[in-house]
């Protein structure tokens, strides 16, 4: 396999990581909550997509619209029922809560979809030639959508009134509150947006990966790696790091096998944690 293949494969993989990690990063920035259930929302979204497309025989675009909205609603529910009560408390409580939530979601997914693998064959199959490399259409489309959504959310954060509110709550909650920003509403909207992004990422991985209820734990750790390497709370850092880690994973897997190859990511993450905890572009979040 030539280098170009590996590079393109890695970058395409990184697109989905970017979308997922950006949602996680957004939530962390605004609420100071590490959402351990983020990956499981992605897994549930992916499995729902299969159910909609294969089980209900509806077109794929129905899933693209419905699933992220459903995930955002689920996120809003989680925020109102659970996180709102503890997000200002000590961090250990929100860590434990989302960790517990993650196992609950996995278990529910196993109850609904069973423990086995499922997939979405026939959607966006076929391949294209890009720069002399055969690229599967589903990966190309998911990359384009993922990066598109990530950049769109970035634009919202940078240039809209809502985005400014989000950034000010993230930087200084007390000052934002004094300035008349409804912190609770911003946090609710942000959490729903973040989980909606995870849901969208789930829809996008559905045609390209083998799906099972444990999918979430494999993705969350990669998303953690991405936001740590990129810098916690840094949006462009997350996108950059996602592409970088996608390449590292694909190249690593090619040379030393998939299992140890994915361990490379974690080792890179641990190395960054130790050498430069603020990440590539992070501003250094105080905790």
């Amino acid at each position: 396999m030539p280098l170009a293949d590996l590079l393109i494969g890695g970058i395409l993989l990184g697109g989905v990581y970017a979308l997922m990690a950006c949602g996680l990063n957004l939530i962390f920035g605004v609420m100071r909550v590490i959402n351990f259930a983020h990956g499981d929302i992605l897994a549930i979204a992916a499995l729902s997509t299969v159910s909609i497309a294969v089980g209900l025989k509806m077109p794929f675009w129905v899933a693209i619209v419905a699933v992220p909205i459903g995930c955002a609603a689920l996120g809003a529910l989680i925020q109102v029922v659970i996180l709102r009560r503890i997000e200002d408390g000590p961090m250990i409580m929100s860590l434990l809560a989302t960790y517990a939530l993650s196992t609950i979601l996995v278990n529910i997914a196993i109850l609904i979809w069973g423990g086995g693998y499922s997939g979405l064959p026939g959607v966006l199959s076929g391949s294209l030639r890009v720069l002399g490399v055969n690229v599967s259409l589903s990966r190309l489309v998911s990359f384009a959508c993922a990066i598109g959504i990530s950049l769109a959310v970035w634009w919202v954060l940078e240039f809209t009134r809502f985005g400014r509110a989000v950034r000010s709550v993230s930087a200084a909650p007390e000052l934002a509150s004094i300035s008349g920003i409804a912190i609770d509403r911003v946090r609710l909207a942000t959490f729903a947006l973040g989980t909606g992004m995870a849901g969208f990422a789930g829809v996008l991985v559905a045609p390209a990966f083998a799906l099972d209820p444990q999918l979430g734990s494999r993705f969350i750790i990669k998303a953690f790696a991405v936001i740590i390497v990129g810098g916690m709370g840094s949006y462009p850092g997350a996108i950059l790091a996602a592409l970088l880690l996608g390449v590292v994973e694909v190249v690593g897997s090619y040379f030393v096998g998939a299992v140890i190859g994915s361990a490379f990511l974690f080792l890179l993450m641990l190395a960054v944690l130790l050498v430069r905890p603020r990440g590539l572009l992070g501003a250094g979040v105080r905790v």
Partner: protein
Amino acid sequence: MKGINPLAVAIVAGIAAIAVPLVGSDYAVSFSIQLLIFLVLAYSWNWIGGYTGYTHFGQVGFFGIGAYVGSLLNFHWGVPWYLAAIAAALAGAATAVPLGGAMLRLKGPFFAIGMFGLARVLEAFALGFDSITGGGTGIYLKPISDLKPIYYVVATVAMIMLLLTWKLDNSRLGLKLLAIREDENAAESLGIPTTRLKVGTFIASAVAPAAMGSLYAAYLGFIDPPTAFAPNMELTTIAMVLLGGMGTVLGPLVGALVLSIVNEVLWANYPQVYLACVGVIVLLAVLFMPRGIVSLGMKSGWLGIGRPSFRRLAADSGRAPS
């Protein structure tokens, strides 16, 4: 001292522990071994998570290291399980020394994510180096016909953990750890050697889980990566400490007893929703009882009021510093 004395509890628990194999069935012994293993894990987690306040999602990593070190020694060289467990404990400590120095430079969520990732790395290695570890197929050990010796060893370790925690709770060291939990910068400024204490606690809390991993593998007669590094083991341990009361002497004991019995009932009747139920228990504890069952005892005067005031554990303590 007003209320229940932990020493008295230890004595009662000790008598109960000796009595179980004498009067109980094989099932009772088998159940008690699992309970006691979780008890030891819970006490270890309590040191780093409850007293020092570092959310540790990687303890199962040490459990797994111990399980593999013990199993491989037993499998390849026929080392008896009790010596294998000692070797596993040493291996756990040996891994924790460099790891502690490195990982405890991280705080809060960074530490949690780092340790969570580390446990997954170890699992990936156990799967990947299948020429040594047997990979996904696992290792089958010679089955042990009589579980009572394992039971007594685990019970002794659990008793030692209880007594050590009691000593810790009544010592300057315990106060220093609580100070780190409450406000690490303030503790540092008062001259508490926070880094040394954190690393020391981290290493101490890794030894017993590694030994338990080895004993658990001997007890099962089998080990594979998903068993050795099971995330639900981690969740159950943390749930026990949280439910009983973090940073207390009796919390892990109460939590482990309650949750083991609940687990056994759930596992027997509703195995398919067992994990979700543990998750719900943790959630409810976080939301409505962050100080655990023991705090109810303190409020009602059954227990002496513990020194830990749980400021940082209470969810209603005002806004977190940003």
